[in-house]
Each structure stands twice: as C-alpha cells, then as structure tokens.
C-alpha cells in the first residue's frame, strides 16, 4: 500500500431555492437540497479522489477505510505530486443586508413578478424572470490539522425580454447577483430596461466585420480580462503546456496602462473566504503595468511551476478543486469616458456580454457583446446587434490604448472541466485599436 502523504475533505451541504416566471406564469418555484463531499488523498504516486453524494461525516475506522479506498484508487497514478507551502487563514463572510431566508417565497415570487411585469411592451412577445438563491455550508479539514467552516449565500435574478416584429426576433437581458443578501426589491427598472433593449434591437442593423477602434464597456472589458488573460494564467493549464503565457514571467506583454488582477478576497460575486484546499486567499497581480507578473495557482501548481500565488483552487460542491479565477479585473486608469470616445473618434462601442470562450494554448479568444453602437466623431450613433470581438491574447494586450477611471464589476458564472463556479469580472471603459470585430453585416 502506497503511503498517504496528505488528505483533505470538503463537505458541502445546502439548499437551492428557485422561482421561474415565464410570461406571467409561475412555471416552477421551490427548494431543493444537496449534500456532497469530496475526499482527496495524495499517495506517493498521485491523487486518489472520492466523490460522495449524501455524505455522513465520520471518523475512526470508517473514515480510514474511505482514505484507504482513495489511496488504492491512486495506484493507477504515476506522477508524484509535491504540495507548496502556503499561508492559512479564513476571511469572514460579509454580513448580508437582508437574509433571503427571512423573506417568504411568496414575497420573493411577487417581487420577481413585478420585475417581469415591468418588461411588458407591445412589441415584447415573451418575458422571463428567474430568481435563484443558493446556500452552501462548507466544512473543510485536512491531514495537516487545518479546519474551517463557513456559510455562503448567493442570490439574484435574471430577466429577459424577447421582442418580435415581422419575423425579426431580438432579446434584452439583465441580471443582478450578489453575496450581500436579498436583492429583489425595487428592481423593476431592470425589467423595463430588458424590454427597451430588445425593442431597440429590432431596429438595429447587423454590425459589419473588420478591424477597427473599439470601446469596450466595463462589463465586456471584464469578460475580456477573464477570457483573454485569466484562463491562460491558470497554473494547471500552464503546467500542461496549454497556455501562451507559459514562460512569459517578467516579459512585457501589454501596454503600460494594463494591470490585471484576480482577487478572491474582495466582496464581489466570486468571493471566497478561503480556497477549496484550505489556503488563505489574496490579491494576485497577473499583469502589472504591462509586464506578466504571476500565475494563478493551487498548491500543486505553485510547487511545480512557481511564479505566482496559491489560494486560487475552487470547486463545485462534491467536485475536486481546480485552479480558477474568482474576481478578475483590469485596474482603472485615468481617462474619462469622454476622452475615450474622443480618442476612438470613429469605431464601435461594444456593450454588455453574451459570454465568451478561449483556447489558451492557441492564445485565441472570442466573445460576444449584447449590442453596440457605431462611434462617429467621438459620439455613439447607430445601434448594432450581434457584434463580437475575437483576437490573439498576446497581440491584443498591446492594443489597449486607454483605460478609463470608472471600473465596475459584473457577476457571472465560469465553466471549466465540467464545473461552474460564481465569478465576477470587471474593468473600466477600454479603448482598443485594430480590434477584430465580427458581425454578419455587409456593405
């Protein structure tokens, strides 16, 4: 039997409450429960991992037998792993302004309905609003006698309006998700906004593709930080040779005005009081003033790769931790929004995000704005729909000419290895030159 070098247990129990309203009909609403654990054992040859649904905490012989099972499983591994030394500590979870558990589901449903009703408009053919509230109770302990527990509650809503006219179908989509407590009150404006955007998009033309100057709003610029830089700086991908940022430490890969950070410790949607390996979280400057500075790590990649900071291991309940982002952002610069549009002069303004994807090994990213406006003589003019941005990580960072002074963060979820975790992305307004903009419009 190979020797157990290390083990840890992460047990998450909790409940999810959801409400789904579709065109005035409460489609479903209610609460579900989960109980999931993951036990990781590091043997002399590698990791053996047990994922257990409906776990009952145990000790003594019963727990030892689980460790033994995981250790036997690890017999098929063949790569000895060294874990880096790391700081410990747990941040306190910020208090919620209003605990969603104190609000009845009937009241939640009624508040969500008000948001959905606010999207009523003669051209809107479908309105849909969802509320989700997830409470996780996390228990962690390991063979080094580290132990922590915390409770996190994340809640929020999405509202979507679909407008239709003569076979043209467009949508507007707004969302608010938070770790700061119940946020369904007084949000009708977002329902209204989703309808206004969907209706306005009926008259928007398709964007014309090509290289041009582009202004990115903070939400889309945040996705850019996440997709174009964040993923490629994840230590596991770098270790596999699957990132264009491998070997770039200390090299200038972007303009002086570009500083990109991941910080699990700030009170945004990706907040983690402690990471999924029991490591204290802290701010990591991935790029500092255009120079590649640090990778995001877990204990294993910290030890094997170096040049970075651990505390970036995250996991869905019952899943083994992966190196992940949490709150990723481009630091604010000193340009005003007006200066950015004046400097852009003629180009395109991209607003909101429909998500993105990256191939970090190839260094290619793609993401889509919710909509945009043509910029003419420094002014936003015609609205355009279905506009995307793609490019190469290593050349695009040199193309950021101006960073605004107005950073804001947006909540979202990020997928990797079949796991989805809450994150936030943010940035100030950015101006890019030679941005590769996609769209189906033609001259």
């Amino acid at each position, binding site marked *: 039997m190979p020797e157990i070098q290390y083990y840890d247990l992460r047990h998450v129990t909790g409940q999810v409450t959801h409400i789904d309203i*579709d065109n*005035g*009909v*409460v*489609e*479903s*609403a*209610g*609460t*579900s*429960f*989960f*109980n*999931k654990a993951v036990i990781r054992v590091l043997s002399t040859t*590698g990791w*053996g*991992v047990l*994922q257990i*649904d*409906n776990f009952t905490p145990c000790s003594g012989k019963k727990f030892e037998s689980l460790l033994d099972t995981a250790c036997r*499983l690890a017999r*098929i*591994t063949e*790569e000895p792993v060294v874990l880096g030394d790391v700081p410990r500590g747990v941040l306190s979870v910020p208090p919620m302004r209003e605990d969603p558990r104190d609000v009845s*589901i009937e009241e939640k*449903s009624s508040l969500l309905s008000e948001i959905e009703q606010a999207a009523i408009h003669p051209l809107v*053919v*479908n309105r849909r609003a969802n509320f989700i509230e997830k409470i996780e109770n996390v228990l962690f302990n390991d063979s080094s006698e580290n132990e922590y527990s915390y409770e996190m509650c994340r809640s929020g809503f999405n509202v979507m309006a*679909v407008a*239709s006219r003569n*076979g043209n*179908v*467009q*949508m507007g989509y707004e969302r608010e998700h938070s770790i700061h407590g119940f946020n369904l009150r007084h949000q009708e404006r977002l329902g209204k906004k989703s309808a206004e955007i969907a209706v306005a998009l009926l008259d928007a033309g398709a964007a014309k*593709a*090509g290289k041009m100057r582009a202004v990115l709003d903070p939400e889309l610029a945040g996705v850019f930080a996440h997709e174009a830089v964040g993923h490629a700086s994840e230590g596991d991908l770098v270790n*596999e*040779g*699957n990132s264009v940022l491998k070997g770039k430490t200390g090299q200038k890969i972007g303009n002086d005005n570009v500083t990109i950070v991941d910080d699990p410790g700030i009170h945004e949607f990706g907040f983690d009081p402690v990471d999924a390996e029991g490591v204290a979280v802290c701010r990591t400057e991935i790029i500092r003033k255009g120079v590649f500075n640090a990778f995001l790590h877990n204990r294993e990649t910290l030890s094997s790769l170096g040049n970075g900071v651990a505390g970036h291991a995250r996991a869905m309940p019952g899943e*083994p931790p992966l190196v992940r982002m949490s709150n990723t952002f481009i630091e604010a610069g000193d340009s005003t929004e007006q200066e950015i549009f004046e400097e852009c002069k003629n180009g395109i303004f991209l607003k909101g995000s*429909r*998500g*993105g*994807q990256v*191939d970090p*090994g*190839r*260094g*290619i990213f*793609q*993401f*889509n704005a919710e909509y945009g406006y043509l910029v003419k003589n420094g002014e936003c003019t015609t609205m355009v*729909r*279905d506009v*995307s941005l*793609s490019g190469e990580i290593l050349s695009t960072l040199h193309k950021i000419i101006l960073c605004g002074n107005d950073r804001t963060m947006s909540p979202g979820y990020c997928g990797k290895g079949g796991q989805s975790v809450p994150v936030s992305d943010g940035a100030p307004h950015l101006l890019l030159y030679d941005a*590769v903009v*996609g*769209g*189906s419009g033609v001259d």
Partner: protein
Amino acid sequence: MAWIDQLLREAEKIVDETEVYFVQGNSVSAELKQKKVNLATASEDYGLGIRTIHKGRIGSSSTNNPDQWRECLAAAVASGKLATPQEWKGLPEPANLPGALLTFDSSLKIEPNVVIDLIEKMLDGAGKHPADVAAGSASLSSAVVTLANSRGIRYSNKYTSVSLSLEAIQGHSTGYEFDHSCFLDKVDPASVGQKATFFATESNNGKEIATGEYDVLLSPLAYGELLGNVFIPALSGRNVHAGRSRLAQSLGKPVTGPHITMYDDPLLKMANGSVRWDAEGTPTRKVDFIKEGILENFAYDLKTAYRFGKTSTASAIRGGFGGLPSIGHHNFIVDGKRDEVADERVMYVHNIVGAHTANPMSGDFSVELSNAFWMMGGEFETPIRSAMLSGNVFDLHQTVSGLSKESRAIGSMILPSVRIDKQRIIGN
C-alpha cells in the same frame, strides 16, 4: 425499493398525482497531465427528484439523500402551492414495453484498470504525430434509473457510459478530440489520441486568409455546436409557444434546403441516447422535426403539451442526477442525401470557439475557427491560422450544399459533416 411505494402512498393523501425519479450511479475516471495519470477519481451518485401535481399546480423538489424523502416531498408539495395552475390531464399509465436494455454494456466493469487500458491506447494513438499531449481523461460510469408514479408506473433502466478526451499542443497550435459510447467496444481510444495530435500538428504554421466568402465544410463537431446552441432549442414546444423560437410560425413551411431531414429516433440501436420511455414515463417514438426541408413537428413534454392542447412527443429529458424534466431529445439525427463533400476545394472547419455566444433568438453568430484547413479531394492541404466565421444558423441551413457520407455521435446528436456555400469569413 419499498421507500418509493411508501412515498407514493404518503403523497396520495395530500396531492392528486406524484412522480418519483431516482438515479443511483457510480463512476471511475482518470485524468492525464501531459502523458502521466495525475488523478484518479471514483464517485457514488444519488439523485431523487419528486414532482407533485395537485389541481393543475405542479410542484417539485430534489435531494441527493433518499433517506430525506419526506422533507423532499414536503418541499415539492409546498412548491406546488406557488405554481400557477394549468390544464393537466394526468401522468402516463404503465405501458407494456420491451424489457431489453438499449444502452447497457453488461461486460463493462467500472474499474480503474479498464480506465488505464483506455488511457494507454489513447496515448499510443497520440504517439503517431509529433504534437505533445497536454491533458486528457477517460471515464466509465454506470447508473440505474427508477421512475415511479401514482398511476402505477414502476420503470427501471440501467445504462453505462464510456468517455474519452485528449488535448494536444504543438507550438501555439492545439488539437482536441473525444469519443463516447454506452459500449466499451464502440469507443476508439487510439483514434482519439491520433486525431488530437494530428490536428495540433497539422494546424501548426497556419496561413492567413483574406476576408471574403468561402465554401465551408463544418465537421460534425463544429456543426453540432451551432445546431445544439441555436437550432435545436427553436424546436422546443415551450420556446415556440413562449415566443422564443424563430421557427414558431413555420410549421408546414420550408425551413432548410430540400435535402435536409431532422428527426429524433429514441429507439436507434447502439445509440447513446436510446431509451424506451422518456423522463416522465411516456413511451418514446420517432419524432420527425424536418422532412426534406419542411418543418413538421415541435418537441413536447406533458406539461407544455397539456397547456397548449398538443400531445407529448415523449421528449422529456432530465439533466443530471435528480434534475427535473424539460424538453429535449434522445438521439437527434440530421440526415439527407449523402455526397462526397470534400472532392472540390473547400475550407474544412474541425471546431469553432464561442458558439454559445450566438443569438439564440435570431440565430446570428460569429465564431473563431479552430483547426481549419483547405481541403481538396478529401485531403487536408494548408492549415488556416485564424479566422472568424459569421452568419446565421437558420439561414445557413438554406444554403447547405451537401452532407457527408459518414455521421458521428456528438453527445446526443448524430451528425454528418455539412458543406455550406458562400459563408462569410473574416480573415486578416
């Protein structure tokens, strides 16, 4: 499982109808970091989903602790009180269905040594080309699904699953390949490894191309991304009646070129999604969505069918353990006249990046190409470095000029390569 009968008896006292969906499964998998197995995982999975229907109000809850069924039932009943009541004509009654299992490999052992054998074969295949292995995985799983309802249904089904994937890299050129099946002898690990390193190797030193219109051949993988993210959701009855489908007004009308047929065949032999009853217990049957270009049907589950005066097409599926039913498909097949699609010069696109960012309402998309090549006479010629493909998923189905002779399973879809003329490519 006596507790399921007990649950149904308890529920009978408080609601009109009850449905229990219980999944119990296990899996073993291994992950490669470069060429070495770094992590081995075993899992035990449980999922219990309960639906209650009372005076047209549908309630639901789930848990992965079956011992907690009383709390789960109470939560489902409470949830039903909030739901808007709707027309409801009852859960299905038991049907006399054949018992033979469609997706269960009785010879498959869910054991680490089987996983390692697959990994070794994948790595052998990968060795055929110089690109490096970056990561990969092999996983085996088995599950038993039980569906019971207050009308007397007590169905049980077993299934197995084998899945493989490999990522390769050479320079800044990447390659990805995967395979999956319910049957161990239907996956080809050596081919997965060989194709991943082939694409990474062959895509290296790609050439720039100019912006313009080109004839494009989308591989089943690339086509599946666009189909699954945009086209298939537009066939869901729920989206149709909610005003979220561009195809809503097109029943009986041509929506694709005349050579294209799309259908769901839940009883196809050896196919991964085959099943005799859907996630609500409705006996499955073939559903013709598009016949020679004409839109014939949308997909329905019971809830949507009852609400809009339609009939369930047995299209209810459940996502994951303990998930609730929603409208989907079992084996979604794109078929039609098959041709040699790569005889004449064409831009072959193996994969695309960012299909999920397409506009699901209008169908407009722009995606980055991955592993794109000039192809002639069926042979790969020059690799294309990077380019963007822009268009509309619905409109491009009007300009399909050929379907390849071979089809491939991509998840629960079975798709050919699709040749589309004059697509807009944004180059450099």
